[in-house]
């Protein structure tokens, strides 16, 4: 069988460095992964094609890239699964991270954010002589997060990072959860306080992209939501983030859907002098959103079924 790979290339050393697509048609076997076909191009057609890969078995995290518009591991993605009857497959580098060359991106921002969450165990002293006693369920639960291979796919496709590069992002927050969820770690309060600041757990819009693209089932968004629950339980609900959650449900209860323009003042408080900074900080994000036609409508109307939505809210409230 034949496949045409439309690869987005970028050569920083050319006279006018411009990203462009280049097509390669190669013979492949039915069982080939995207990585197999890229390696074939690199070995047989164009040695200058740059990509990272090593394990071929979805464990080293080197080969994340966008295939047909979604971030994925090239070594875990069968060609036929993305061809969908066509003979062409579009392959691009990850987004939200600067491209160095072809499919190779600069992951420094990724690692800086991992560093920002103080990614090491901060246990209660003194250490026991033997191992810490910990329930197996807790460890198995954490294994799901420890399964993160730091590939960057979630960061590539995170919708908040697209407009706000300061957001810690799904991978770093999942990493933070790995410690907050670890019964041996004793820095929960400190961690949750830091994570509740601007750029932290409250900035996620729950778009679900990270859960969709994660090749290892880490489900970063679910970890972020778990962190939010813990933050609120630990008393970090006076900050704008937690208020954001409250504002969110207030607004939805009122009109049946989210009035995004009213979210900001409602979260920060219109007349709070402290909110001036965050409000001004939102302006560039708003402008960028406008440029990408993502700004919400100025006049917010209730949806037709708003009464039903309110009824749901009442029911939930009654149960609390």
């Amino acid at each position, binding site marked *: 069988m034949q496949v045409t790979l439309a690869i987005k290339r970028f050569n920083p050393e050319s006279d006018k460095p411009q990203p462009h697509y280049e097509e390669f048609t190669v013979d492949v076997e039915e069982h080939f992964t995207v990585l197999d076909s890229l390696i074939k191009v690199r070995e047989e057609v164009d*040695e200058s094609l740059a990509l990272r890969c*090593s394990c*071929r078995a979805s*464990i080293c995290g*080197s080969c994340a890239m966008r295939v047909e518009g979604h971030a994925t591991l090239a070594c875990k993605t069968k060609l036929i699964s993305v061809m969908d009857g066509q003979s062409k497959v579009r392959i691009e580098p990850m987004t939200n991270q600067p491209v160095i060359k072809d499919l190779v991106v600069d992951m420094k921002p990724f690692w800086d954010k991992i560093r920002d969450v103080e990614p*090491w165990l901060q246990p209660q002293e003194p250490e026991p002589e033997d*191992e810490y006693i910990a329930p197996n369920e807790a460890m*198995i639960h954490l294994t799901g997060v420890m399964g993160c291979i730091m590939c960057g796919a979630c960061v590539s496709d995170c919708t908040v990072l697209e407009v706000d590069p300061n957001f810690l992002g799904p991978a770093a927050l999942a990493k933070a959860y790995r410690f907050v969820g670890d019964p041996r770690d004793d820095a929960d309060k400190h961690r949750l306080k830091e994570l509740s600041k601007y750029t932290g757990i409250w900035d996620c819009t729950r778009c679900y992209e990270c859960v969709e693209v994660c090749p290892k089932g880490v489900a970063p968004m679910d970890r972020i939501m778990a962190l939010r629950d813990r933050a609120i339980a630990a008393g970090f609900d006076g900050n704008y983030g937690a208020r954001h959650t409250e504002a969110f449900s207030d607004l939805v209860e009122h009109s049946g859907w989210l009035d995004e323009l009213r979210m900001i003042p409602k979260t920060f408080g219109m007349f709070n002098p402290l909110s001036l900074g965050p409000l001004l900080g939102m302006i560039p994000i708003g402008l960028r959103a406008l440029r990408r036609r993502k700004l919400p409508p100025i006049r917010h109307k209730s949806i037709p079924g708003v009464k039903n939505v309110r009824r749901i809210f009442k029911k939930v409230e009654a149960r609390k």
Partner: protein
Amino acid sequence: MAVYEHDVLVVGAGLAGMRATIAADAGGANVAMITKVHPVRSHSNAAQGGINAALTSRGDDWDDHALATVKGSDYLGDQDAIEVMCSEAGDTLIELEHMGVIFNRDEEGHLGTRRFGGQEVARTFFVADITGQALLQVLYEQIVKSQARIYEEWFVTSLVMVDGQCRGVVALELMTGQLHLIKSKAVILATGGSGRVYEPSTNGLIVTGEGMAMAYRAGAALMDMEMVQYHPTTLKGNGILMTEAARGEGAYLLNSEGDRFMEKYAPNMMELASRDVVSRAVQTEINEGRGVDGCVLLDLRHLGRELIETKLSYINEVALDFVNVNLADQPVPIRPGCHYIMGGIKTDVNGATTIPGLYAAGECANVSVHGGNRLGANSLLDTIVFGRRSGHTAATYAAEAGEKAISESVINADRDFIKLLMSREPGNDSWAKIRRDMGDTMNEHVAVFRNEDGMQTAVKAILQLKERFAQLAVRDNSQVFNTSLLFTMELGFMLDVAETICVSALARKESRGAHYRTDIPERDDENWMRHILVHASPEGPSIDYLPVVITRWQPQARSY
């Protein structure tokens, strides 16, 4: 030219390299780590099954672990080194746990164990079937905490030798294409194995053996290079590993007749005999026509879906992805594949090589604790124990090493070589073709079953490949992230490693551990209780011998 200078420079950021860095840092040295890929991409991440340790606090006996290791090594392991490793294993494991490794537990919340091959006792500690990845992430966490400098995506091209001492390295910065000199009073090689000298292999594409080749070129001795481990259960097709933990949890090996054929080869330990024994059994079944399409079957069905999904979920994912098999429903086709090299740079128990200032730890080193055959889950232990010891020793050495003048011209040889590669006129040959031919040659002639003729053929073939390499051009002249240049340089090192494997294999005139000769099928303790050393010389590899260190256990007939 920027000047980089350290007390201790660790080449490699896998488990051994990171553990060495942490130890040297704790020892007060100015330490840096240099690695051709980001630390967590190192191939240690692929280790699945677990790490061995006898926890004496719960009544296990490290003597028993040591004896199993000695027997597993087919009596070629140095017993003093094995005693060091096994006696320090317990503390090492607890230290890892304290650092944050989320080992699976038993019902009371204590560390849980599973059984592994070549041992009667369950003393393998694990994190599901992603143990290596879980350890690597935690050591990286400690590195981040330590703030040690990391030269990331820098490819080391040679060792800098001054007056017979190792004093630093030359390295290519992949992002810019610049060559740099990094001075260091002590250098620790932790570059991992060389599995990709074979094709197929369970090893990642980056596992190309430069550390061994660089040390060899600089004059250090390599030892027991003929001892290459074939893992019995690698996936049909692409050779990805199906961990021994599957059998540790109770999986069966079946031939085309549905028999648990290990009954014939290892009636007591069955599927959990030593790896060399199981690999030969599997290969024999296939060769004698009781295979299924070039493979035998690994059957996990009776373990049940729940166990598979909690403790073996990664191999289940791999089997689904690549051969479309759900392990709970169907047996999976497997066959032996190149996995690990017991041989490596000869070191003492503190990581010191035969060159002053040069240390080695992890798979690139040979202490020797694995001898003729490594027990499953002993390698992770080896990386951590000897990583720590070498980091500690190198820091102490560096503190007293004093200064030495190093001329920047030491990088000229590598610079000229790169220029030469880039200026040659490209012909029909490519690094990929030579690399594949090398892998096929080794896999055909220096594998599970060997004989004189085959090994002679392999030596000749490798020499021919070296000639082809001497004509090879790099087709890409770019500076930034030039992987064509990178792979070509790796290939040069790999060919040296392949050659040392072949000549060492030819030198050992007996069968022991992973080195099984159909033309001399017996072990010969009278003549061959000795290591094979290989040095570089102007005439090519030269062979030497060293007796095995025996402390307490005399060689016995080996049966499982």
